[in-house]
């Protein structure tokens, strides 16, 4: 059930753009593909949709194999039971809103009364109940996006595919629509792949996030896991802001930086030798300097910059070897002497790349 992708390879001009990708998506799960521009997200999505033919691998949708390079199975996109929202929305300009949404039902030769009912329901769902007969040329960007979503869900597909559906909307509409997509997907309980390069979108929407880089999977996991325990520095930087400290890990799994500060982690270190300690800005606690010896997981520093962000402050604190960013609601003046501390559970060692 859901979606299963095994050993997927897609090349352009002999250069692999998607390079041996494996993943499974459970029934009703929403997985985001997250990664920098050009890493192969759209290509992966289009392979699943059947709009690209991969060089090798196997793809199954809802248990049915739709592509298998070994046995030569290639199911055409129009025989895969999918719904897709294009980045450009691809609303057909020569059809009304109603006809756009009705199209998947018409090509399935559904009875007129059923079409009427289901299109009505789909349009209600996306909040466009009153837009039936509107020409598709007279829609705002946000409305076009909703028509595209209605068209993608109207035939109750087995999977939903989104390719950066919010990237053409303005910031406020984006936040609202994101929440709506999430709710809609929960209600429909349909397996969904959501391509984005926006970390906030991925973190807030997904059951799991798949981080891609150069056509390969870097990490697949829940948003919380990816945020707190990234596999490597690349993932750490793609998901959320990150502070890194150069350290040397000893045999017992503790680390020191060259200034002598020690870092302890609750997680197994990747081995001994040079590494980097990652601590998220919201996990660094800032407090007044009590003086004297500080002990482990503590760093002395000076406030270099203070930005008031509304409910909290963002500080840049200069320590001896790094200048981490720190989020806190406590107030400190610029140039104040402070101590940064953190929990072993919020510190993770990553190999240098």
């Amino acid at each position, binding site marked *: 059930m859901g979606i299963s992708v095994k050993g997927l390879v897609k090349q352009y001009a002999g250069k692999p753009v998607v390079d041996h990708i494996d993943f499974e998506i459970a029934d009703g799960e929403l997985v985001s593909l997250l990664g920098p521009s050009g890493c192969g997200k*759209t290509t992966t999505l*289009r392979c699943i*949709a*059947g*709009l*690209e033919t991969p060089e090798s691998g196997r793809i199954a949708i809802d248990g049915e194999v739709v592509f298998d390079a070994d046995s030569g199975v290639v199911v*055409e*996109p*129009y*025989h895969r*039971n*999918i*719904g*897709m929202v*294009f*980045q*450009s929305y*691809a609303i*057909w*300009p*020569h059809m009304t809103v109603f006809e756009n949404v009705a*199209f*998947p039902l018409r*090509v*399935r030769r559904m009875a007129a009364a059923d079409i009427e009912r289901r299109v009505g329901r789909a349009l209600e769902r996306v909040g466009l109940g009153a837009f039936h007969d509107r020409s598709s040329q007279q829609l705002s960007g946000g409305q076009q996006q909703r028509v*595209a979503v209605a*068209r*993608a869900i109207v*035939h109750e597909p087995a999977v939903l595919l989104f*390719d950066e559906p919010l990237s053409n909307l303005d910031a406020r509409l984006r936040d609202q629509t994101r929440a709506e997509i999430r709710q809609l997907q929960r209600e429909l309980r349909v397996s969904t792949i959501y391509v984005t390069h926006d970390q906030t979108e991925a973190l807030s929407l997904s059951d799991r996030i798949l981080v891609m880089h150069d056509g390969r999977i870097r990490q697949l996991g829940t948003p919380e896991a990816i945020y707190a325990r990234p596999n490597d520095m690349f993932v750490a930087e793609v998901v959320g802001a990150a502070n890194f400290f150069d350290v040397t890990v000893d045999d017992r799994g503790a680390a020191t930086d060259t200034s002598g500060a020690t870092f302890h982690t609750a997680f197994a270190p990747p081995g001994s030798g040079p590494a980097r300690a990652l601590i998220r800005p919201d996990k660094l606690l800032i407090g007044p300097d009590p003086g004297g010896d500080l002990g482990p997981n503590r760093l002395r520093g000076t406030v270099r910059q203070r930005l008031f962000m509304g409910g909290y402050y963002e500080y840049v604190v200069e320590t001896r070897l790094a200048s981490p960013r720190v989020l806190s609601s406590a107030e400190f003046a610029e140039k104040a002497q402070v101590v940064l501390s953190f929990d072993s559970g919020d510190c993770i060692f990553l190999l240098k790349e």
Partner: protein
Amino acid sequence: MSGARSLAFNNQRSGWLIQAIFGTTFLVTAFLIITPLAALLHGSFQTGSPGMPTVFTWKNWADLGSGNIIHTLLITCFISVVTSVFSTIGGAGLTWLVYRSDFRFKRSLVAAVGLSFFFPGFILAMAWVILASPGGIFNDVLDELFGIEWLQFDIYSVGGIIWIQVLHIIPFAFFTLRGPMISMDSSLEEAGYISGANPWAVVRRITLPLMIFPLLSSLLLCFVLSVEQFAIPAMVGIPGHVNTLATELYLLTSFSPPNTGLAASVGLAMSAVTGLSILFQRQIIRRHNAPTVTGRGYRVRPMTLGPWRAVANGVCLFYVAMSFIIPALALIYTSGIKFFVANPFEAAWTWRNYLQIWDSPGTIRAFWNTLVVAGGGAVLGLTLGTLIAWFTHRLRPRGYRVLDALASLPFGIPGIVIGLGFLWSYVYLPIYGTLLVLVFCYVARFLPYATETVGAQVVQLDKALEEAAWVSGANRLASFRRIILPLLRPTLQSGYFLLFIAYFREIAAAALLYTASTQVLSISIWAFFENANWGVASALSIVATVITVTLMATVMRAPLKV
């Protein structure tokens, strides 16, 4: 807008110069376009021929209603409607194969279509006479080799004209349709596949409706091309006593007793038909643009042809064979034999026909004349076209709309009609019988080619490039010379060769305007052919085609890329 204008004309020195250039451009254009039209109008009210004693009359306009002219008009419309329908269908089919399917030989197909695009119509017609006239190769082969007598081809017929015209105009339809097809957002079609529609349903319910206006526009353009087509109906229609308006006009002018006055009114009536079609086509283009690519995510998923692949290959091969390969082979064959026989094994091979080209001083002169008219004329035509494009798209001084309208007028006027206009202008112009009249006529006739080619590029050029030059201290002329001209250079090059080739192969206007000393190649070939000297005509065609194709291959590569 007004800001740009004040910048142009505040600077005293360059403002004055630009005004002077604009004035000159305007006058030259007006002279070139209005002279033949005014002369035609004048001529349509005269009893005599240009230069002969003549009096005012209404008769030429009244004669438009005569049975003969009405019959010719109906034939012309029938031929043109059928031609445009088949050409558009053919062109659309080829476009779809190249830009939407997984057809295997896209590059070769585009190259072949490009070749036949540049294959002159009169040479194609000649080849088809050799192939399919009653005594031609096809009939001989059917009769003698296979003993089939019931199947007879007769190219000298309405069907023959349509057949050659469709072959000739399909590439044009292809090149007008491929722009809209390429720029159409392919995710619109992909959304159709995703919705569950199979390829046929996607073509029918999405691609076709979205392409309807480009198709309509192509239909109208092909119609106009067919109405104004002269060479093909002249070569296969006149012998078969099938006349179109274009050939009727020629016959009225060139055979005694000439009725140049009636020819003028026929020409004006013809221009009304083509002009209105062009107006309509422009309206369509302006109102309805096909939805185009919106930023990122543009990719085309080629449709799998599957079992239809063989059909597609076959149809394309057939088209390429009929429009280029077989005609070219027929010409090569005919140019290499002493007396025409259909069976190559009975033929007496010879170089005689090629040698005869060099032995005939008239032909050598025609070569030089063509070189002067095409090579030199294209410089004039391109210069004028560039100035007009620049004034109408960028500077827009007072009166630019009039200039624009004047320059696009020849779009709607058939070549033979402009030729006739210049013939009538003999009354006021002392250039008749010189090469200059051909140059003037060609520059006027193909002016829209130049303004459209250059204009399309001018519109694309970001205005900021030029503004940056102004801000850096360059005045309008300096920025034009140092920034714009270098950026336009590739366009100017291809524009030059487009004009060169158009002038090189023009026959309709030349047929009315040439004299013994101003004969050009196209006319020489036709004359040899008319005198039943197929061998020399073929040899000369081959030489001319090789020259054209070589030029095209070396410099016009750009439009042939997939």
